[in-house]
């Protein structure tokens, strides 16, 4: 069946490359190796969300049994989202698991991921900490997600207050990324974040 997998990816590759979404710079796929098993994807953050303006890179692995099994996709770009692990980039999305259908394509997967960024599913979380913040303190969540988009995905919005808090933690001797994770986890309370990092 490897034959089907390769043939299909070749076709899909053309489909995504050709489609209008690329023109709008919203989704993109690139080849990593020649045998079409490893791909690099990119999706643009949907407008009117905390991810707007960001470009999120994805690692896509095509199993030999594709399209009978879904592609394995994870975020390479760090992202603050209830259904995506802020540590590993693993994604919790039904169509990448039991709801996969052979008729789906890379294009539909990338578009679904974009839709996931626009509409999180906090009740089916991948990252429990983020999901809790999303539900209990949505304003902070939105700010954090926007800040991560700027920090890792090239988003345009600089949140000076949050930047300052990270700088102050860096001055305490903490690594920038670890400081950002700790602050994000502890709702941007510098004292609690420092405690969290020390313990």
């Amino acid at each position, binding site marked *: 069946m490897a034959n*089907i997998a390769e*043939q299909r990816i070749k*076709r899909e590759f053309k489909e995504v490359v050709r489609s209008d979404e690329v023109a709008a710079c919203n989704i993109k796929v690139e080849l990593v190796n020649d045998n079409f098993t490893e791909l690099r994807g990119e999706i643009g953050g949907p407008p009117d969300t905390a991810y707007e303006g960001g470009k999120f890179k994805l690692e896509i692995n095509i199993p030999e049994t594709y399209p009978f099994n879904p592609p394995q996709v994870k975020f390479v770009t760090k992202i603050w989202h209830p259904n995506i692990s802020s540590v590993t980039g693993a994604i919790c999305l039904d169509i990448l698991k039991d709801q996969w*259908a*052979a*008729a*789906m394509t890379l294009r539909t997967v990338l578009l679904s991921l974009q839709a996931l960024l626009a509409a999180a599913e906090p009740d089916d979380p991948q990252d429990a900490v983020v999901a809790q913040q999303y539900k209990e303190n949505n304003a902070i969540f939105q700010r954090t997600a926007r800040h991560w988009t700027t920090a890792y995905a090239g988003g345009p919005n600089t949140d000076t207050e949050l930047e300052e808090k990270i700088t102050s933690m860096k001055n305490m001797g903490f690594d920038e990324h670890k400081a950002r994770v700790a602050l994000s986890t502890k709702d941007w309370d510098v004292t609690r974040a420092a405690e969290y990092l020390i313990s």
Partner: protein
Amino acid sequence: MSHIAVCPLLIPVSDNQFSGFINVLGSSYRVSITIPTDGNLQDALLECEWRLHNQIRRKAGAIMQKLKDAVDMTSFLRDFILICETTLKSSVEQSKWFDTGPILQQIQELGWDRIQNVNSDLSQLQLTTIDDCGRQHIMAVSINKQDLASQPVCSVDLPEKLDFHWSGKSGLKHLYQQFEAAVSSYQHFWNMLKEIDDNCWILEPEHPTFSANHRRIALGPNISIHVVINCRQPNTLPECRLLGADSAVADLREKLNINLHRWDVDRSLLKNLEEVLDIDFPSPTSTSKEELSISCGICYCNLLDEEVPDVVCEEKRCGQPFHRTCLYEWLRSLSSRQSFNTMFGECPLCSHPIRVKVITS
């Protein structure tokens, strides 16, 4: 020493040297093999007498490779002897003298203009004929060099098997005449097919040969008819099979049954099909092939191992076709319900119930 079984005459003269004879095609050749002290066959030294050396010199690379790959002495010797045998055999065949005179004479008799292609020793020929409608037909002839009186192997592109009549005295001309006669007998058949090929969208075969007596003709999006034409009486009703979603095909099937009496052997095949199905075939000039042959919803190809997607989702708004293999593989990967030789599941596109016959390989 297990290699004794392969080469009983190859005798160890010291701990790491063997000397003696190997037997290739009934003759013995002097050979000696010296293995380095570390026992690594890759660096072994292989010497043999000039008679053998001259013959297998060209195969030095292959022999080195075998030395490299060999797990032990016995397996290497076995491969080595095999290489020697095939090399010697081919050189024996090449050296055999072959008289082209009689064949030249036969070609002369036939006329050089009927020869399309010929190889250097005249044993492989391609004869050609142009039929009444300007179609070129080729007959490939392979002559047995050892025995010119035996029947040459002929291959032709005709809808039926052509059994050539051959007696020891008949030559190329005799074969050619039979070929010409056969070609002219199929003129009507090919003319009927040409009319179809020119005026309809042929989905299958992609590049029809003269021997192909079947066509899959597009009738509409995802609907097609597969016809098998009688090459002797091409105007009679062919074997018809309608392909597509049951809902879409049912209507046509009924028409086909009701209108059968309107089939008129004096009309051409295409006209008859149009009359009986009561439709106009979509023509290549007015429709694009993409509109008519949609790719499989799983592998996204049209042709997969020579098959076209012919299982169709019964939901009218979906109508997505799938290759039998693809759909079966998909339903199987979901461990769907199977009853006798049918597997039940849902269309991977619209989730409408769909079923497929189990494929037993």
